[in-house]
């Protein structure tokens, strides 16, 4: 495994090559070398010498993101410090037809920032200024390279925090979060990145700088911001983000509940939600995941549990107290044999440590593993978990389950030892079968990790050709040249027709100069 990016990384001596199905996403080395050279010249003109990397050895350090078994060495890496520098490079790419890929901290788990061999990797890690903490407006304005947790750190003295909290929040960047519409444990109550990013300055694939949204809600016109968030870098590069800050809750209660099985824990989860309680988070881990976390961080989870739930309630004290009583009773009714309420911040941190370290911890019980990310309707949890268990036993491939139970977002960890012949393939098969289960239960092929290069091939299982074609109309509007992170999300690129600027049908009165366009 790459080992360089935070907690959520995938393993993989399956590395060093890109599977054949992904080659359309990666480009041919040396393609359009004249264009590449021209972009390099512009980059060197507008940026300090340390901001342009062309040395092959250095380039290799950028060959993958958090999904380390896809690797491609980029033709050029640039590290702009300003929006203008970044836009100048993108403009040059546009002029010379050179593809570019944006990257924040490189923690993504779907290969969304996998470089192009024939393109530029634009790394935003030097754009790391928190521009404003606007308490009165409950907003912060930050650069794309700012680390997720740093927004919360900067807002906490004012009594605020940034709600979306992917497990990699100590290292992942806001720009990457915006591209991927990142979730996290607490999005059950507070929503995802798309609910918290209210404005952005976007460098379009033509290199223009446009403002979408802002400090105020409901900007007139199409909600392009809503489409850009989660578009995985295919519609341009965000160079600032205006984000919502959320008031710190008066009280937080974190409860750890031990159950004999995932069936009981799943039923308890459904019962809590059905009772009208909306916890900040409900996380589940099964026996194998608990074993791994225990070995790694000694989180002291209930011994012998077949499943644990981590349930966090937050809000005004009077509400939390009432909800806690309800949750406690529901857990007991559903067979919880141990309930442990964190009595202080240290205990709360320990409970969460077990959960947040689970992905990495699995590395201790298995040399290799695949992190899967799929979503099912919450009520299908027990049935799907049983089906995963059957898949596991029939194939002999071990699967550890760690997931956001409250919103049905599964993260099965498919364990294997790549030193054993065929083990990687068997694991891939199980991993794929789990996604099929999600789809057949009316779910989604990704809840928060994105499609990237990893799941583009699964998109046709969830969407029709017409669905995908319609989505790509947006792509064609933003990026008709198909140079902004090409090959990601969509298995087949759409031909876009004409380039922007040449408008076929302006308002006839505007065209005739008889009316202003309002």
């Amino acid at each position, binding site marked *: 495994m790459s080992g360089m990016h935070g907690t959520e990384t995938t393993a993989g001596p399956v590395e060093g090559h890109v599977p054949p199905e992904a080659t359309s996403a990666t480009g041919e080395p040396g393609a359009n070398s004249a264009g590449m050279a021209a972009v390099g010249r512009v980059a060197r003109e507008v940026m300090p010498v340390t901001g342009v990397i062309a040395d092959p050895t250095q380039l290799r350090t950028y060959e993958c993101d958090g999904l380390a078994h896809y690797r491609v060495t980029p033709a050029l890496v640039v590290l702009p410090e300003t929006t203008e520098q970044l836009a100048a490079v993108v403009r040059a790419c546009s002029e010379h037809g050179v593809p570019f890929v944006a990257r924040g901290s490189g923690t993504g788990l779907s290969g969304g920032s996998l470089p192009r061999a024939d393109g530029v990797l634009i790394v935003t890690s030097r754009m790391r200024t928190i521009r404003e903490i606007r308490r*009165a407006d409950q907003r912060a304005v930050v650069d794309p390279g700012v680390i997720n947790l740093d927004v919360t750190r900067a807002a906490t003295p004012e009594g605020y925090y940034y709600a979306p909290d992917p497990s990699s929040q100590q290292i992942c960047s806001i720009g990457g979060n915006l591209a991927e*519409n990142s979730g996290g444990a607490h*999005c059950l109550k507070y929503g*995802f990145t*798309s*609910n918290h990013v209210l404005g952005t300055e976007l460098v379009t694939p033509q290199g223009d700088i*446009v403002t979408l949204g802002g400090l*105020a*809600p*409901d900007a*007139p*016109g*199409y*909600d392009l*911001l809503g*489409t850009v*968030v*989660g578009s995985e870098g295919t519609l341009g590069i965000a160079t600032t983000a205006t984000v919502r800050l959320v*008031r710190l809750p008066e009280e937080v209660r974190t409860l750890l509940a031990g159950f004999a099985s995932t069936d009981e824990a799943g039923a308890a989860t*459904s019962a809590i939600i*059905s009772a009208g*309680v*909306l916890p900040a988070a409900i996380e589940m881990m099964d026996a194998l995941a608990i074993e791994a976390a225990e070995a790694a961080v000694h989180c002291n989870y209930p011994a012998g549990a077949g499943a644990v739930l981590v349930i966090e309630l937050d*809000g*005004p*004290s*009077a*509400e939390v107290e*009432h909800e806690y009583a309800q949750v406690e009773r529901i857990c007991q009714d559903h067979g919880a044999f141990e309930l442990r309420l964190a009595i202080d911040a240290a205990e709360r941190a320990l409970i969460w440590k077990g959960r947040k370290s689970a992905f990495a911890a699995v590395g201790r019980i298995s040399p290799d593993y695949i992190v899967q990310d799929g*979503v099912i*309707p*919450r*009520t299908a949890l027990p049935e799907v978990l049983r089906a995963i268990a059957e898949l596991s036993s029939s194939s002999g491939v071990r699967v550890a389950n760690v997931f956001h139970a409250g919103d049905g977002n599964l993260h099965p960890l498919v364990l294997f030892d790549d030193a054993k012949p065929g083990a990687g393939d068997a694991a891939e098969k199980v991993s794929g079968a789990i996604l099929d289960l999600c789809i057949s239960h*009316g779910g989604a*092929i*990704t*809840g*928060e*990790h994105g*499609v990237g290069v990893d*799941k583009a091939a699964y*998109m046709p299982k*969830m*969407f029709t050709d*017409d*669905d995908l*074609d*319609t*989505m790509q*109309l*947006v792509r064609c*509007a*933003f990026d008709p040249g198909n140079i902004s992170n090409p090959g990601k*999300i969509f298995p087949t690129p759409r031909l*876009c027709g004409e380039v922007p600027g040449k408008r*076929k049908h302006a*308002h*006839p009165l505007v065209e005739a100069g008889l009316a202003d*366009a*309002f």
Partner: protein
Amino acid sequence: MTTAARTRLDAARTALGSACGEVTDGTPADAVDGVPVGLVARPASTPEVAEVLRAAAVYGLVVVPRGHGTKMSWGRPPEQADLVLDLSRMSAVLDHAAGDLIVDTQAGAPLAEVQRTVAGAGQRLALDEPVAGSTIGGMLATNTSGPGRMAVGTARDLLIGVTVVRADGVVAKAGGRVVKNVAGYDLGKLVIGSYGTLAVVTQAVFRLHPVPVARRVVNVSADSPDDAQRLVQQVVHAQLVPAAVEVDWPGTGGGTVGVLLEGTEAGVEGRTAATIALLGGDAAAADGLPSGWGRLPWDEDPTTGRATALKATFALSGLSRVLEAGRAAAAAAAVPLRLRGSGGAGVLHGSLPADTDVAAVREVVTRLREACAVAGGALVVLDGPPEVKAGVDTWGPVPALDLMRRVKEQFDPERRLAPGRFVGGI
């Protein structure tokens, strides 16, 4: 209507009739913001909508989608309206999965009907209905919102799946039936607030919330715009998690700040007491919602005819500036301006009487727009009498307009969906 146009419509009628069965001539009542309508088609399903749009494409008809027609005059008048695509027959609430807290509904379903369906399980679609009688599709197309937006947001925060039919009749969906999903582009957000100019929404899936057991409103008087802002700031920075923070600012004198608290009986009781103590003054609790709560101010316009309907948005710290500017502009133009809306979310709606002189409307719009812009927001004239629409820049400046035009060109290259109704002549 020219003879050529009439002939074209007559030819299209047969094709439309075989597409959906229910096709009638447009009546004066069908006119869209004064623009006469040739035909009205009432398809009963998504495939029928697709057939109708394919037929409309063949005959080059300009199509304006309609739900219950409660907001047809919002935006600018379309350049033309050969065909109204009426979705009111698609009124089924298809599936309420209570355990998953989602509802799947046809776009022509009345919002109130959706609420009735999900209320049986103690749930609600956490979207207000500021315009009574709205359908799901109409609400999405105009992105209406009310007091509750402060806590749970707007349609963009609750729509998890959408089915649309493009101008060329292609049916496409995005999102799905699960609350968490990042597969593919979020087309739902793109069609929200698009006034029917991109595609016709035929089906929508929403995330639901539990109905709180208890609710209480604390009202407090505000003497001045600064006072209103001080009160709103106090309550949003407290840890009371209000469901709504409303400001009602009549044409004269001071106004009212209302704080809605929702939750458990005991919780709401405690938070109500804390809110009263925090706000001081004449703060007092009421069990019911105050009169006018969540109502759009133009619905209370005493003059006959169509009032001018404004929507002002701003960063929270801009509240006093916007209230101040509104009052000053109205005084200068000698018209009464009532502002009301979510002080906690930064959205106020305003109303100028139907008989207000166009120059006066323009003056108020200009000054209020300046104040909103300084506060990071915008001022839009949602609706108004024809003279106002003709004489006022109703949408105002729109950043990224060029990109929006490009999106429109991709979805509707022939400009046949409600052309001219949206920003920049889109």
